[in-house]
């Protein structure tokens, strides 16, 4: 090791500072969900569960939660189908324009969210003349969730190669049998992880949602955004924010236990 003990100590310190920078703000939000003070003066003078009860009775927040779950499930279902198909095509076939496919899949998450948002809004509104609804939210979310499933499935397919499938074909299995008994079981982990992460991404998306949601369908992030600047709603916003942190982090930890590539699938 070329680094002196002192350098390593400094690096460790900077690592800890970096992690603190990442986690302290999230910790403060969770802490504030239990803060007794209505104005959230810091440090808290006492702790209470009162706001959690109030949040559980808040119909706007509950509606938002339900809409977010519906949108997340719809977008995840579409992303699972489309992402898996694209990953199979790119990993198991050689064809002209193969790299363009990967590029196209990544584009919706690479371009600024606001451009995707106003483009879809314009398409729904002026080109197709459809009213915004839960379905337009789902279409928007599915478009940028495809890449998450695609990355997870592609990483798995690349790692396993196709030798097991060839062996299955050599032993006389039909294409469908091979898929059902060899390919699919091997992919299950990647699909679960990709699905969880796609759901997580959809669940907290706001930029595109802002432009594809009708006024009467609020997702949870839209509800928070609408109530963020109202001081009397602050206690409930804090609770919902804490819930969102936990709900977003849990799927990542589960997905990470299933497959190593999970957390990096945004790249």
């Amino acid at each position, binding site marked *: 090791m070329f680094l002196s003990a002192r350098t390593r100590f400094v690096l460790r310190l900077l690592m800890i500072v*970096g992690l603190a920078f990442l986690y302290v703000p999230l910790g403060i939000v969770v802490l504030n969900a239990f803060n007794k003070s209505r104005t959230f003066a*810091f440090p808290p003078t006492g702790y209470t569960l009162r706001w959690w009860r109030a949040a559980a009775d808040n119909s706007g927040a509950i509606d938002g939660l339900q809409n977010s779950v519906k949108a997340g499930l719809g977008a995840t279902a579409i992303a699972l189908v489309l992402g898996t198909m*694209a990953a199979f095509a790119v990993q198991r076939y050689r064809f002209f324009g193969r790299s363009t496919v990967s590029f196209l899949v990544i*584009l919706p998450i690479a371009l*600024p969210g*606001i*451009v995707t948002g106003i483009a879809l809004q314009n398409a729904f509104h002026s080109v197709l003349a459809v009213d915004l609804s839960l379905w337009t939210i789902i279409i928007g979310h599915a478009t940028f969730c495809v890449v998450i499933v695609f990355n997870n499935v592609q990483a798995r397919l690349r790692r396993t190669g196709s030798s097991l499938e060839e062996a299955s074909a050599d032993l006389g299995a039909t294409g469908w049998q091979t898929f059902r008994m060899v390919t699919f079981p091997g992919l299950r982990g990647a699909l679960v992880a990709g699905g969880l992460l796609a759901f997580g991404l959809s669940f907290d998306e706001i930029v595109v949602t802002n432009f594809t949601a009708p006024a009467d369908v609020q997702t949870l992030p839209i509800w928070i955004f609408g109530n963020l600047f109202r001081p009397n709603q602050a206690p409930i916003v804090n609770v919902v924010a804490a819930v969102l942190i936990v709900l*977003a982090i849990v799927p990542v930890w589960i997905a990470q236990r299933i497959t190593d590539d999970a957390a990096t699938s*945004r790249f």
Partner: protein
Amino acid sequence: MTVPAPAGLEPSRRGAISAFFAPKRRTRLTLLLGPPMVWLVVVYLGAIAALLVSAFWSVDSFTENIVHQFSTANLHTVVTEPIYRTVAVRTIAVAVAVTAIDAVIAFPMAFYMSVVASPRMRRLLVVAVLTPLWASYLVKAYAWRTLFAPNGPLSWTTGGHTPGYGLTATVVTLAYMWLPYMVIPVYAGFERLPRSLFEASADLGGTPWRTVRSVVVPLVFPAIAAGSIFTFSLTLGDYIAVGIVGGKTQLIANVISDQVTLNQPLAAAVSLVPLTAIVLYLAAMRRTGALENV
């Protein structure tokens, strides 16, 4: 599945076998590729194209209907109105500042993760750095609103000396939100660095600091450039975090979102600014070899 032809077969039979498989493989590929491509090309690229076209339309000032007649008036407005130039310059300055802050924080973190930490620790740290990426975007911006609040934690620790909501808060919040996007590519860059180079440098008499400066930094630079693509692009597209912690600060995406209900064609024209900036940035990064590092 790519089934390689058995090596023992003579060329003519090999040809016959692939000829037998070819039409079926073609069909299967088309079936696999069709739905995702239709979705991405028709729904996504179609929408982007329609947006670009709409930048050349205008709004009738009397009826407020969109006039479908080709005109470059919107583009002209975006280029000549000083307000758009001011906001565009401010946005790019914020993007550069955010990128620089993230690079400075990410470098030692990635260094530690890759070179100092044990393999077990390394895996834990990767997950620890990536997890906040999945925590709600909105909540992260909200967290900084709480931190910067007049009676919030920052004010309490500094005895009231906080910048408050404004440009500084915007830069800090954006740097916070995009930090994992920088750490991970830089970490991957460190992972590709041959360890023998450290020893070679030390053998040649290089001090640790000299090794970092002359060996590590130049080799990790493309990875930093790769991370900067994310920090740059994400900053150019953000308007929500800016609205939450920025006070009256406006970035280019705020202008687009404010304009979209009033004058959609003008909003489309303004959105060409971040779009062009990102395309130019990607082209520049391509020359540094950063794109192979993403």
